[in-house]
């Protein structure tokens, strides 16, 4: 009988194994030049490196899959393989890095798993930001940000390596570390908060070995959700730091000397028909796609949630009035409503958020109403009534918190839809202003050059796909974590 920890380890390695092979296959595909058939040598060397790591990873999977393997016991072969696989990160392979760390550590606490992804976010952000050194010039505060990022990476790596010694630390040091972790989330790396909370909870007496019940704890079992979380956190962090580390003159200012350049080290994703760097545009576009996606989910979540809760709690006439009015709104196709609003009030980010939010209110209200209808019948609500508590108090303290979980799942899943809607509207010329580097806008320009300069459309398209996939994975993960049947 294998231990829970061992099974988790094997699952993680198995999950990464497929991905690392896919990753090397991608490099093989990229390295082949089709017309005429030849190999692009730098990419081919990358493929060979990935291929070697993949074989090592396959060996690791074999070693941990055997019956006698227990993650708690020392195993020299596994340890050696793990250490080698750690270096995969230098070739851009984060999967072998994760597997290496997971097999290397004996105890796999929630904080440890989150620390891995926290460090990975730092590494990704630093490597992407570092691409700027190839540019003719860098932003004023580029170096400062680089130093901040690198010191954060060092700090976070320290937590990753020595986090399991947490219990032995002095209380004051614990406090300082927690505060520092929380502060470091200010650059956008929200995973530091997850780590801080996990460390704090583990530090509370009697918590060790306790059954994992919270979403935060259960999420670490879902590798796809964690990858989604990694990419989203990466985007949030790069959105925050790009304001200081990327120069806007490359993304928004036209330069007619470098029109439609092929991808190169200076312009990793090429330049568009106005000579703007598509790479910088996609980085700055993340800010808009993310903020529009998040805001146009949070606003209807709040409004629809409140209306749904009120409607279900008070019932009868209130319910009828609110829900019938919302039904009217529900009858109008969301996208059509958005197009009408933007066409009437003009293309701008604010209008876009309003347009996308309005159409989503009824569906949130319906979900919340169904949840609350169920919750108000529970005994604890009745008990609260019997104790003479006011309606408002009961709604806030007892009803809403217990009805919120399905709403969070729904919200996470619909952020992806909001991102796609934003991009679709921009693609139609109805989103944000045409010069703003929003992903749909970038894609629209790229689509005009699909045949001659396909990279102009491929990269923004990939960015949209990845972001939506990430939110979907995360949403699925949260739903599974929430679902008593799955547990």
């Amino acid at each position: 009988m294998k231990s829970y920890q061992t099974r988790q380890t094997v699952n993680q390695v198995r999950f990464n194994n497929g991905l690392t092979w896919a990753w090397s296959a991608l490099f093989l595909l990229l390295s082949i030049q089709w017309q005429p058939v030849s190999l692009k040598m730098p990419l081919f060397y990358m493929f060979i490196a990935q291929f070697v790591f993949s074989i090592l990873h396959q060996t690791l999977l074999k070693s941990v899959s055997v019956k006698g393997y227990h993650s708690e016991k020392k195993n020299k072969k596994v340890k050696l393989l793990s250490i080698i696989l750690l270096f995969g990160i230098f070739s851009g392979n984060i999967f072998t890095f994760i597997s290496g760390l997971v097999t290397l550590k004996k105890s796999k606490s929630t904080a440890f798993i989150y620390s891995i992804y926290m460090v990975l976010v730092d590494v990704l952000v630093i490597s992407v930001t570092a691409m700027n050194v190839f540019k003719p010039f860098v932003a004023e505060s580029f170096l400062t940000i680089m130093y901040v990022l690198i010191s954060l990476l060092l700090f976070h790596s320290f937590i990753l390596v020595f986090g399991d010694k947490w219990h032995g630390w002095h209380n004051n040091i614990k406090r300082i570390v927690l505060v520092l972790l929380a502060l470091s989330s200010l650059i956008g790396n929200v995973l530091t908060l997850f780590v801080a909370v996990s460390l704090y909870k583990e530090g509370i007496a009697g918590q060790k070995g306790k059954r994992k019940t919270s979403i935060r704890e259960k999420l670490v079992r879902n590798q796809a959700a964690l990858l989604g979380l990694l990419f989203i956190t990466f985007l949030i962090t790069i959105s925050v730091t790009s304001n200081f580390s990327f120069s806007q003159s490359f993304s928004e200012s036209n330069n007619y000397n470098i029109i439609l350049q092929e991808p190169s080290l200076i312009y990793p994703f090429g330049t568009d028909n106005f000579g703007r760097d598509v790479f910088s545009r996609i980085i700055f576009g993340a800010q808009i796609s993310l903020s529009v996606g998040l805001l146009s989910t949070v606003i209807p979540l709040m409004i629809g949630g409140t209306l749904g809760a009120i409607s279900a709690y008070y019932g009868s006439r209130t319910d009828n009035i609110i829900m019938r009015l919302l039904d009217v709104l529900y009858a109008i196709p969301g996208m059509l409503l958005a197009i009408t609003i933007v066409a009437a009030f003009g293309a701008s980010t604010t209008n876009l958020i309003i347009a996308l939010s309005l159409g989503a209110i009824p569906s949130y209200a319906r979900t919340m109403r169904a949840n609350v209808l169920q919750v108000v019948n529970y005994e604890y609500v009745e008990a609260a009534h019997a104790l003479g508590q006011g309606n408002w108090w009961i709604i806030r303290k007892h009803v809403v918190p217990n009805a919120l979980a399905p709403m969070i799942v729904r919200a996470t899943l619909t952020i992806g839809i909001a991102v796609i809607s934003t991009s679709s509207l921009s693609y139609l010329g109805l989103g944000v202003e045409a010069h703003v580097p929003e992903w749909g806008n970038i894609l629209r320009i790229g689509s005009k050059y699909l045949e001659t300069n396909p990279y102009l459309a491929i990269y923004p398209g990939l960015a949209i796909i990845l972001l939506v996939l990430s939110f979907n994975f995360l949403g699925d993960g949260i739903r599974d974590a929430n679902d008593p049947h799955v547990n």
Partner: protein
Amino acid sequence: MNKKILSFIMASSALVLGACSVQTEDEVNDSGTDTNQNVETTEKVSLEILGMGSNETDMNIVRDQLIKHGFDVELNTQPDYASYNSQKEAGNYDLVMNSWTTVTGNPDYAVRSLFITDGDYSTISNDEVDRLINEAALETPDNYVDTYTELEDTLVTENAYIVPLYNSLKAQAFNNNLLDSESIRLSKSRAFAWEPVSFVDEAMNETETVMYTQTISDLTSLDPIKANDGSINQLNTNMYVRLVNLSDDDQVVSDGSLSYNYAIAEGNEEYYFVLRDDINFAKVENDEAVDTGEMVSGQDVIYSLNRAKNPDSVPDHRTFSLHEHIDEVSLVEDLSELEDINLSDGSGNMLDALGKDLDSPIETLVEEADDVDNAAGDYQVVKLTTTEPFPQVLNYLGHQSAGIVSQKQLEAVNTYDIDSFDLNEDVPYGDQRAVTEGDSYDNHLYASGPYIMLKKNDYEATFQRNPGYMTNSDHSANIKNASVRFISDEDSALSALRAEEIHFLYGLNETKYDIVEEEDNLELQSMPSNGVSYMGFNMDDREVSESKDLRKSILYAISQEEINSAYEGNKLKAYSTLSPLIDTGNELTADPQKVEDFYEAYLENQ
């Protein structure tokens, strides 16, 4: 533990060292970076630019250039023409994106309605501009260059009423495996002529249908005077013959027109046309074009031109302003009258000019259509007088709105009372309902041109050759059946061309030239067009309306070279809407110093 800490410190120091190399990279580059910082630039006023989604590229470039010169720019992009126009009429702009195509090929058309006080599209009022436009209109092409140059100087150099952006190329692509390259005409102003087109394999001309395309499927009207837009220009041009035609380089000629010859009498107020007798009207019977046996006569010409110049001849008359210079149209009855008239250029008398190169010389002038017999020397001669000397009237006669219609058929169809006309009940001549498949189909068209429309739906319109059109000359149509596909999206139209769904594509975006050139079975033709894109200023109650210094400051911020490179070198320079027609020698060059100087002057005069 110690070992771990040691390796950790080593890893950290490696990272820090890595960061140091970043720093040097930055230091090297940091010294010589400020390339895009224009040191002299000062902060300037905020400008609002109005345009359509299709102007996106232009608006982006202009915005970028103005911002780099210190202006604060806000874009107002409207998705379609209707909403753009309502914003324009509401005056919600400082600068508005405009484009103008001189479809008649004459300079008067390029300036009159745009810049004269109270012109159809004019927002400016300047006595000097009015005077120059009217003065130039009276002059012949040899004399008007100086006047138009002076007009351009007043319009742009002195007052900066417009900011010229570029002159476009006109491009068309076709399948050269199927269509004979020699038979495809590319004309500067006139719509594409279908009659010379031929398949490579001439046997296919009788059996196969040639496929053309256009974007708009909703046809304004097939009555030539009731529309002047992209939905019918190509169709009406090929369905109705005119007194004269424009050649590919915009010269007024009689080739392929209703007249054998034309001439201008001394004084530039009288114009004479000698008519052919080998064009009959066609009509549609049982989905086939048939010859009515009715000749396109001088009476039809008089009827057509009189209704063209009279605003009240039909409801929704859209082209009378083009023909407002026509005074009187009549038939000449007395041959000796022609002998006494001297030509405008003093090269001889009218009779000789009209009789030049005719197979049989003019013996008698007849009035009745039935009496016409060119082979026997019996001709009809039309005399047209203008309200004032106006040689450019000939260009308007070559425009599709001056197409000749059948007096008999129009009087038979247009039986409604003009004052109580109701579009829901009355079907006027040329209404698309009469040719649309379905219950309302009742094709009443009488075509005087090389082709006639059989029917249309939302997908395509089908045409057949006019069997009574110049049957014994080179100008009769080669291909029997033609079809016009309605494809609203330009990219889809190009795909259709590549997939051989259509054979000919008229109008092609600059960014697609490469794709067409790379295809083996496609051929690209392009030439400078009469289309000019420019920005107009809001001349009503804005900062830019009051100060010409501010306008000039904006004018010199625009670099046409940069616009051209964004269009991959496929745009030409322009100084005004006259640029494609007249070589005035003016050229707009961006000048940051002038931008600052004029802006300073604007601030001082405030």
